[in-house]
C-alpha cells in the first residue's frame, strides 16, 4: 500500500477564534479540518480553561505543502500578534491523495 506525502498543519490557539479559523482555512483551499479542546501554557501565561477566557483549541489540517505554507503564514500574520498562538508543521503520509 502506497502512501502519499502531505503536510499536517497544527494550530494551537484561543478558543474564540475557532469559527474564524475554520472559515479562513477552508477559504484558503483546505478540504477538511479537525479540532480538539486542549489546555496549555506558554508565553501568554497558563491557559487552563479555568475560565471561559482561558480555553485553547488545537486544529489539525492535512494538505499539500504549498497550502500548508500559506495556512501557516496566514495564521501567523492575522492572529499570532494579538492572540496566544502556536503553529507547527509535520510530514505525514496519506492513503487517498485526492482527498487532501
Amino acid at each position, binding site marked *: 500500500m502506497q502512501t502519499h506525502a502531505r503536510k499536517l498543519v497544527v494550530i494551537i490557539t484561543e478558543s*474564540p477564534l475557532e469559527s474564524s479559523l475554520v472559515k479562513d482555512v477552508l477559504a484558503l483551499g483546505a478540504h477538511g479540518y479537525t479540532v480538539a479542546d486542549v489546555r496549555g501554557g506558554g508565553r501568554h501565561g497558563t491557559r487552563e480553561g479555568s475560565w*471561559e477566557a482561558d480555553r485553547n483549541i488545537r486544529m489539525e489540517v492535512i494538505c499539500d505543502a504549498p497550502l500548508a505554507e500559506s495556512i501557516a503564514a496566514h495564521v501567523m500574520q492575522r492572529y499570532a500578534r494579538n492572540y496566544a498562538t502556536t503553529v507547527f508543521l509535520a510530514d505525514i503520509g496519506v492513503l487517498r491523495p485526492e482527498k487532501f
Partner: protein
Amino acid sequence: MDPVVLFFLLGVIARLLKSDLRLPEAMYEGLSIYLLLAIGLKGGVELAKHPIGPLLPQVGGVLLLGMALPLLAYPVLRHVGRFGRPDAASIAAHYGSVSMVTFAVALAFLVDRGIPHEEYMPLFVVVLEVPGLMIGILIAKLGAGGGLRWGALAHEVFLGRSILLLGGGLAIGWISGPEALAPQAKLFFDLFKAVLALFMLEMGLVAASRIRDLRRAGLFLLAFGTIVPCVFAVIGITTGALIGLSPGGAMLLGTLAASASYIAAPAAMRIAVPEANPSLSLAASLGVTFPFNVVVGIPLYHRLTGMLHAAVP
C-alpha cells in the same frame, strides 16, 4: 454572613490552599444557563403584570446611565492609570457592562430581608449591558486606524449567550405570564438561591485564581476596582431614585452600575480590541470588583441607598 457568600469564600479558600477542587466546565455552563434563564423568566413574569408605556422613560434613563459609565471610567484609566488606549477602553467596557451574578446576589439579599423592589429589574440588566460594551468598543476604535466590523460586533453583543438567554427568558416570561409558568416555578424560582450558592463556589475558585494576575497588574487596579464601584453605585442609586424606582430598585440599579462584566465583556473585547491584554481587565473585574461587591459592596450600597434615596426630590 449569607450562605451564598460563604460558598464563595469556600471556593476562594480552596483555591488559595491549592486544592484541586474544580467544578466541571459543563456544570459551570449549565448553572449559568439556568441562572440567566431564571432571572429572565422572573423578570418577564413580572413585566406581564405592568403596562409597558410607563416603563419607557425609566428604560431611557437606564440607557443613558449605561452610556455614561464607560465614558467616566475611560479617562481615569487612560490618565491616572496610564494605560494605552486599547487596555483603557477594554477595562472601561468591562466596568460599563454588568455582572449577572452580582445582581443575583443583591436580589437574594433583598428577598432575604423582605425589602420590596421593582420585580421587572432584569429588564434593566439587558438595557445596561449593551451600551457599556458598545461605547467601550467605540472608544477603542475611534482614532485607532483600521476599520470596525460593526456587523460582527453587534452580533457578538446582542447574540452573546448572556443577552440571549436573559432576553429570551424575559420574552418567554412576558408572553406566558404567571399561570402558564407555574409548573416551571419549582425549578426556576424555588431552587434559585441554592443553585446560586453552587455557582458562587465556582466563582470563588475562579476569582482566587485571578489574584496572581493582579499582583502583576499592580496597585492601581486594586484601587480602581474598589473605588470605582462605590462611585458608580452612588450614580446608579441616584439615577434609580430620579427615574422613580423604589429604594430596593434603586439599590439594585446601583449594584448593577457598580458591577463589572466578566463573561460578555471579555468575549466581546477579545474580538473587538484584540490588542488589549485580557488578563488586566479580568484581574480587575473578577479578582477585585466581584469579591468586593459580593462581600463588602452589597451591604454598603444598601446603606448608601438609605441615605441617598430620601435625599432625591
